[in-house]
């Protein structure tokens, strides 16, 4: 049994879960649907030279946190795939609360980890910051400052906490754990930019277009005074029409919005790489691999358009 399956089984055996069908059913489904970054605590343990088995409670906690965040995110987005549709809004929100507290309990009950209280505090802080960031997000940022404030609150904390808590369970010293947390924060921004690119280029128009949201490429096209700005703003109201969406997406390419996002990705990749070089890790390879996976799509894109990839773009 892999470490992820072991972590889910440990959750299923928890006293809270045994008497609560909804949470048990959600965890059973999680056996085949791993959350993004579930493996980050393991990578942190590997990086600091600790046995990966140490990370099991951290994996369980991060999984609970992710499940809770998805429930709330789907409610806020009115996502047509959301569990609230069959559970009901109230039960979905309550289930999120239960998963959140279960994650914290798992950490506090990990008697083998001397930093379990600090780990639980970190998970709690992450959920708090993410909740704040989600609230900022639904207010639909229309400025660069507001966009980054929302991203740094709603996306970065999760990845930061996954690495930080993993480092604590790997007996990392305080400085290294903090550096891994900072690495996770930067990685979270990278993930959000990728997410925004993906959503913006989707066809048919996805919820960000349809609900008038401003993910990074769209925000760029609305802010900078490029020649097709007015046309873009006009098209935004018509994107249910595939032709209008295509034209709007073409404007995103031509005005430099996609290039801007790529430059932001490259800058953060460089920042995270630099941070990694400064860390005293037993094995930096797991984190180097994460970064490489994050930048690989950009290398691919540059190859496709016949450009040279240079990390000094800033």
């Amino acid at each position, binding site marked *: 049994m892999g470490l992820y399956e072991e972590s889910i089984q440990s959750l299923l055996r928890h006293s809270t879960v045994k008497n609560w069908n909804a949470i048990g059913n959600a965890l059973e489904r999680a056996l085949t*649907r*791993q*959350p*993004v*970054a*579930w493996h980050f605590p393991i990578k942190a343990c590997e990086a600091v030279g600790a046995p990966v088995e140490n990370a099991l409670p951290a994996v369980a906690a991060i999984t609970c946190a*992710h499940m809770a*965040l*998805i429930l709330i*995110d789907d409610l806020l987005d009115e996502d047509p795939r959301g569990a609230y549709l069959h559970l009901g809004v109230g039960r979905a929100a309550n289930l999120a609360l239960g998963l959140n507290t279960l994650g914290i309990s798992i950490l506090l009950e990990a008697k083998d980890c001397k930093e379990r209280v600090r780990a639980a505090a970190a998970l709690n802080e992450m959920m708090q910051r993410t909740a704040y960031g989600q609230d900022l997000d639904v207010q639909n940022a229309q400025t*660069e400052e507001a966009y980054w404030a929302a991203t740094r609150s709603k*996306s970065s904390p999760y990845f930061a906490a996954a690495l930080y808590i993993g480092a604590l369970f790997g007996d990392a010293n305080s400085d290294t754990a903090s550096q891994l947390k900072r690495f996770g924060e930067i990685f979270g921004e990278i*993930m*959000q930019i*990728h*997410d925004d*690119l*993906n959503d913006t*280029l*989707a*066809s048919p128009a996805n919820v960000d277009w349809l609900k008038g949201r401003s993910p990074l490429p769209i*925000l*760029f096209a609305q*802010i*900078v*005074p*490029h020649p097709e700005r007015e046309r873009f703003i006009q098209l935004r109201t018509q994107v249910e029409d595939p032709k209008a969406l*295509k034209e709007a*997406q*073409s404007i995103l*390419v*031509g*005005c*430099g919005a*996609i*290039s*801007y996002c*790529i*430059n*932001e990705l490259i*800058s*953060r990749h460089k920042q995270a790489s630099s941070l990694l070089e400064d860390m005293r890790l037993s094995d930096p390879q797991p984190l180097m691999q994460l970064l490489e996976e*994050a930048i*690989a*799509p950009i290398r*691919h*894109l*540059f190859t*496709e*358009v*016949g*450009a*040279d*990839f*240079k990390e*000094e*773009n*800033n």
Partner: protein
Amino acid sequence: MLSMQTFYSSLFSPKVNQASSFRALLQVARASLKEILAVRSTLAWDTWGES
């Protein structure tokens, strides 16, 4: 990291983009939507999706 306005001005400035590695980013801006969409699947990182 550059502000959006600064990036935009630099990207399309003949002086800047000939002298710097903005050339690659300018090539992306001059690519067709079809070329960009062809690599979209590799950019499929749904932050809150399952892996």
